[in-house]
């Protein structure tokens, strides 16, 4: 019964996961067939290529920046959408819209909106407004963090909305009787009750922004300036534009390693709190 699923999953997902490690020890320029070169790709990518470390730094900035933007907005949005007023339900329907667009669609939209010749900067009569959003190397990283957030905040908002709706209303009623205000309730009831959702959402956000590059690829027209060439994008460009699939595989393995470590760490952190909330019957 499970055989077809196992075959598909094994051949096209599990084997490639090990395959990427194998290819990282091979030289392969797409045209020929891969040949064994031992550790030389690793040596080259880690020690003879300073940009790897620059890209790692950019990746860390991107991941942390994305998290600091997405997590608070998604949490507040989730609480807001879980509220009982009718207009909030209507807004929630509209908040979802970014999830219907492909990354290319979003990329092209913002590319046009942030164009130096038309779009936002031409439409708004503010002199202080920059018009080189996508070419200014000090600015472009923050623009990417914003656009990626635009895409993914709605999804995490939904997770938090579902989480908030599981919190028993009686807790808030009791707190109100005790005279706790809205802010106090948010920090003393909502946040602790959402522990599990926070961990899930955080894992998805961090690991997601570690490997996601479609949007940056589109926004930079496939020729990323070095200011936003984060590791996954570096992997793609190295592999499929420079045709150095051995180097690219090394970068891919590094990404998988960081991703797994990150999820494991978050899993350990969540371990105790998860059990508590299970006991509480949540």
């Amino acid at each position, binding site marked *: 019964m499970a055989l077809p699923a196992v075959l598909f999953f094994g051949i096209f997902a599990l084997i490639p*996961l090990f395959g990427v490690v194998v290819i990282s020890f091979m030289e392969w320029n797409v045209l020929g067939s891969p040949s064994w070169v031992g550790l030389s790709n690793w040596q080259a990518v880690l020690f003879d290529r300073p940009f790897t470390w620059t890209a790692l730094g950019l990746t860390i900035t991107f991941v942390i920046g994305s998290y600091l933007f997405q997590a608070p*907005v998604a949490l507040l949005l989730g609480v807001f959408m879980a509220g009982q007023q009718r207009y909030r339900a209507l807004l929630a329907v509209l908040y979802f819209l970014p999830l*219907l667009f*492909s990354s290319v669609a979003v990329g092209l*939209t913002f590319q046009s*909106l942030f164009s130096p010749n038309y779009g936002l900067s031409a439409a708004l009569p503010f002199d202080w407004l920059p018009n080189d959003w996508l070419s200014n190397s000090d600015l472009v990283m923050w623009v990417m963090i914003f656009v990626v957030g635009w895409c993914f905040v709605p999804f995490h908002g*939904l997770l938090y909305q579902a989480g908030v709706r599981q919190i028993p209303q009686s807790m808030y009623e009791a707190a109100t009787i005790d005279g706790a205000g809205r802010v106090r309730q948010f920090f003393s009831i909502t946040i602790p009750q959402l522990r599990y959702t926070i961990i899930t959402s955080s894992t998805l956000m961090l690991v997601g922004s570690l490997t996601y590059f479609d949007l940056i690829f589109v926004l930079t027209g496939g020729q990323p300036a070095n200011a936003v060439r984060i590791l996954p994008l570096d992997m793609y460009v190295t*592999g499929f534009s420079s045709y150095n699939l051995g180097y690219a595989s090394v970068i891919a393995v590094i990404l998988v390693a960081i991703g797994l470590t990150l*999820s494991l760490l978050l899993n350990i952190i969540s371990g105790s709190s998860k059990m508590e909330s299970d006991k509480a019957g949540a």
Partner: protein
Amino acid sequence: MMTHTASTQSATPDAGKALNPEVPGFEHRDVKQNKVRRTGAPGEKPNLLGGLGGWLWLAIIILPIYYIVITSFRTSEDLRSSNQLLPTTNPTLAPFIKVIQNDFLHYFTNSLIVTLSTVAVVLAVSVMAAYYIARSTTLGGRRLFQIILLGIAIPVQATIIPVYYLIQQLGLYDTLWALILPQIAFAIPLSVLIIVNFVRDIPAELFESMKVDGAGEWKILTALVLPMAKPALMTVGIYQALQVWNGFLFPLVLTQSSDVRVLPLSLWEYSGQFGIDVPATLAAVVLSALPLLVVYMLARRHIVAGLTAGFGK
């Protein structure tokens, strides 16, 4: 149509709940909590700051969408001469016509073929695997579930190079198969997880009584599991369809020629091909999102449930 979808969806978990009060479906719980909260806090003073933030985020979400819609009705001369945030005074359908004339329907058909075949296979193999896992009492069954769950954490981007190699070796490069096969594989883990949770909620007595009546595995699967797991299959199907329809990385790496181009890749190619005719590119963006908008209006609850189902609990 919307109310119809909503009612069929909550009806089935209700039936399940009557049989097994311990384990209501997640959609049902959602609906119920919702009701409780709506009658919950009367006379609460309005949260002005929250409301303000809510409207502000709406503006951030809507502005780009509004911009592409109004821009797609412009001529490219109009784009540079007037204020782009105001609707044009002489709208034109020319950008849309240009997109249609540039094989849009061909790419649309490719996307449709890839999406429908991927989802059909994913649903079939996932429900079979889920039935096996949910009813399995052996160690092997549990191990298998753990391995499949691990699969949720495999980032597609990191495996794209070996997938590319594999597809090349199989002689499938630049075919629709190259898009369908790997996307089936990467859709399986989450689909199995969601369906397993649903199949586990089917009362064991139902399985027993069917066995007593002499029903084989296939009979049980088609006559009991399939009808009972229908809401989960809906959810999984719509969610995976959304993923495949919008997927960009696999088409980018695994296809090349315009014969097998799917919509997201076509947008990318259009933007290069149309160059400064930005309204035409944005018209393509609008057209590519329209089918999903229609699906969203018809089956919003399923899409929302699908998105949170794997991670919500």
